[in-house]
C-alpha cells in the first residue's frame, strides 16, 4: 500500500533513513507502526533538536551579548554567576520562571496571555527553512523565501495584541509604533530579496546558496544595505528600537508583562537576531559554502560574525524618531530598492547565464550605483537636515474637540 505521503522524497537524505528507522519499529504488538506515527516521530525528533539548539544558542548568546556590550562600554559585564558569569543565563531563566507573573487589572484576559506565544512563534519558524550545512535542513521548501517573508510578519499581530491588551498607554504607544514600523519595512525587505532572487533564479534557499558562485553581497551591495536596515527594523534592533524605547515608552508593549511571559518576549527578541543573521548568511554570504572547514562550521561562523555586527550597531547608535524611521523606509529604502531591482533585472536580461567575468562586471556596476546612491541621497538628507523648519505649535480647539488632520 503506497504510503499516503512520502515526506522526504530525496533518497539519500538524512531524514529518509530516520523515517525508515522508525518505520520498522514495533511496540505493543503492533508490528510496523502506522505510517503517520513514524513520520510524526521522525519529524518531531528533528524539530525538537533544532528548536532546542536554537534556544540554547540564544541563551548563550544573551551571555555573550551582555559581556560584549559591557566590553564596548569599558566595563566587565556579568561575571558573578559561575566562571566568567557563564551561569548567568541559567540564573536568568530560573529567576524568570520563579518570578510572579503579574496580571494588572483592566487587562484583556486571554489576548494578554496569547501575545507572547504568537510573538515567539515567528523567530523559531524561520529556522525551518534555513540550510544549516551541506544537506542538513528541516525542509527544503521550493518557496523558502516566501515562507520567511510570511513568517516575519507574525510579530506585528503579537505586538499589537500585547500593546492593546495590557491597557497601559505606553504599551499602546509602543504597539502602534511597532505595527507602523513593521508594516512599512516589509516593502524594502521584499524588494532587496527580489534582487537576490533574480540572480539565483529559484526561491528555495538551498538553490540560492548553490547559485552564489560569487557571494551576493559582492553582487548586490545596495540590496544587502537595504536588507540589513530592513531586517534590523523588523526585529526592533538598535537604530530602530522605537517599539520598546526604554527612554521614552518605559518598555513599550511589554511594560505590563513580568515573569515568564516577559521572558518569552525577551527570548523571542534574542532569537530574532540569530534568525536574521542566518537569513543574511544564506542570502548574501553564500550560506554554508567555504573552503577547508566543514560546512556547519562555516555557517555558524558567518552567523556569529553577522550577529556581532548587529550587536556592535546596537551598542553604539542612538535611536531614530518615529516619523524619521517611516520617512527612511518610504523615501529612502523603497526607491533605492526599486532602482536596485531595475539594474539587476537589466543585467540578468543582458547576460543570460553570466560567466564569472561578466559577474564581476555586474558587481562593479552595482557597487558604483550603490556608492552613487548613498552619496547622492546623503547630500539630499544633509541639506534637508540643516534647513529643517521647526514645527509650529499645533492649534487645537478644545482639548476634547474635533480636530482637522492636516
Amino acid at each position, binding site marked *: 500500500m503506497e504510503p499516503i505521503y512520502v515526506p522526504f522524497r530525496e533518497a539519500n537524505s538524512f531524514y529518509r533513513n530516520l523515517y525508515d528507522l522508525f518505520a520498522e519499529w514495533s511496540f505493543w504488538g503492533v508490528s510496523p507502526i502506522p505510517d503517520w506515527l513514524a513520520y510524526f516521530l521522525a519529524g518531531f525528533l528533528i524539530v525538537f533538536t533544532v528548536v532546542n539548539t536554537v534556544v540554547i544558542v540564544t541563551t548563550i548568546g544573551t551571555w555573550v551579548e551582555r559581556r*560584549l556590550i559591557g566590553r564596548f562600554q569599558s566595563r566587565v559585564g556579568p561575571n558573578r554567576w559561575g566562571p566568567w558569569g557563564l551561569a548567568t543565563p541559567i540564573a536568568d531563566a530560573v529567576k524568570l520562571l520563579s518570578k510572579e507573573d503579574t496580571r494588572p487589572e483592566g487587562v484583556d484576559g486571554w489576548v494578554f496571555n496569547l501575545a507572547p506565544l504568537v510573538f515567539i512563534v515567528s523567530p523559531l519558524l524561520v529556522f525551518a527553512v534555513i540550510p544549516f550545512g551541506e544537506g542538513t535542513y528541516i525542509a527544503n521548501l521550493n518557496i523558502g523565501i516566501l515562507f520567511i517573508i510570511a513568517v516575519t510578519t507574525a510579530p506585528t499581530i503579537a505586538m499589537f495584541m500585547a500593546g492593546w491588551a495590557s491597557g497601559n498607554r505606553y504599551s499602546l504607544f509602543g504597539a502602534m509604533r511597532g505595527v507602523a514600523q513593521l508594516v512599512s519595512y516589509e516593502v524594502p525587505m521584499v524588494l532587496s530579496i527580489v534582487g537576490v532572487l533574480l540572480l539565483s533564479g529559484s526561491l528555495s534557499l538551498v538553490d540560492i546558496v548553490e547559485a552564489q558562485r560569487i557571494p551576493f553581497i559582492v553582487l548586490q551591495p545596495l540590496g544587502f544595505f537595504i536588507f540589513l536596515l530592513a531586517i534590523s527594523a523588523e526585529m526592533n534592533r538598535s537604530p530602530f528600537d522605537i517599539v520598546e524605547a526604554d527612554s521614552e515608552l518605559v518598555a513599550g508593549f511589554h511594560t505590563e508583562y513580568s515573569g515568564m511571559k516577559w521572558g518569552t518576549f525577551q527570548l523571542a527578541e534574542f532569537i530574532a537576531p540569530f534568525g536574521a543573521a542566518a537569513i543574511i548568511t544564506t542570502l548574501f554570504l553564500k550560506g554554508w559554502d567555504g573552503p577547508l572547514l566543514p560546512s556547519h562550521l562555516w555557517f555558524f561562523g558567518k552567523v556569529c560574525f553577522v550577529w556581532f555586527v548587529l550587536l556592535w550597531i546596537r551598542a*553604539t547608535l542612538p535611536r531614530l524618531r518615529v516619523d524619521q524611521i517611516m520617512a527612511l523606509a518610504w523615501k529612502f529604502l523603497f526607491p533605492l530598492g526599486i532602482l536596485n531591482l531595475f539594474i539587476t533585472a537589466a543585467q540578468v536580461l543582458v547576460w543570460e547565464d553570466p560567466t564569472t567575468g561578466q559577474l564581476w562586471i555586474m558587481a562593479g556596476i552595482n557597487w558604483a550605483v550603490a556608492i552613487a546612491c548613498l552619496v547622492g*541621497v546623503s547630500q539630499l538628507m544633509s541639506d534637508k537636515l540643516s534647513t529643517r523648519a521647526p514645527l509650529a505649535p499645533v492649534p487645537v480647539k478644545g482639548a476634547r474637540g474635533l480636530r482637522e488632520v492636516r
Partner: protein
Amino acid sequence: MYGLGIAKGLSVTFRNLFRKPSTIQYPEEAVPQAPRFRGEEFAWYEERCTGCASCAKFCPLGIIKIVTHPGGIDVQEGQSYAIDVFDIDLGRCMFCGLCVEACPYDALFMGSGFERSTYRRDDLVIPIDELRQAEKHPSTWFRPQLEAKEYRPQTGQPLSWEEVGR
C-alpha cells in the same frame, strides 16, 4: 556625509573593545581611599576629650548625645568632666565632618570605614564603649598635623592619643 559619522562612532566603540575595562570588583578589590576620606568609624580619644560638647552643638543634625557629670580628672581647675554617655547616631549622620572641625581638643576624628550596615536602626548608634575599644585609625580630615606626618589611616598603625594632638 551620510554614514561617515556613524562609521567613526562605530570605530570608537570598536577601539574601546580592546581597552581594559575600568570596573573594580568591589568585594575582592577595594577602591583606593584618600587619607582625608570622611568615613564612619569615628576615632574618639577619651583622654583628650573634656566633655565640652562643642561637637554636639556644632553638628547640623544634632545626633551626638553627650551626658557628663562633674568629677573628671582635675575637678578644681574644672579641666574635664567625666563622660557617661557619648554616642553618635550613624543612622542619621551625613559625614559632613563639622563635629571634627568644631572639636577644640582634637579628640574626635573621622574614620575611613563605609561598610557598616545593620538590620536594626539602633544598631547604627555607636555607644561609648565601642568608641573606647575601637582601633583608632583617625582620618586626616581637618587635621593638618596628621597630614604633615604622611599618616595613611587605611594602612597605617593605630595612633595613641599623644600622637594625634596639634
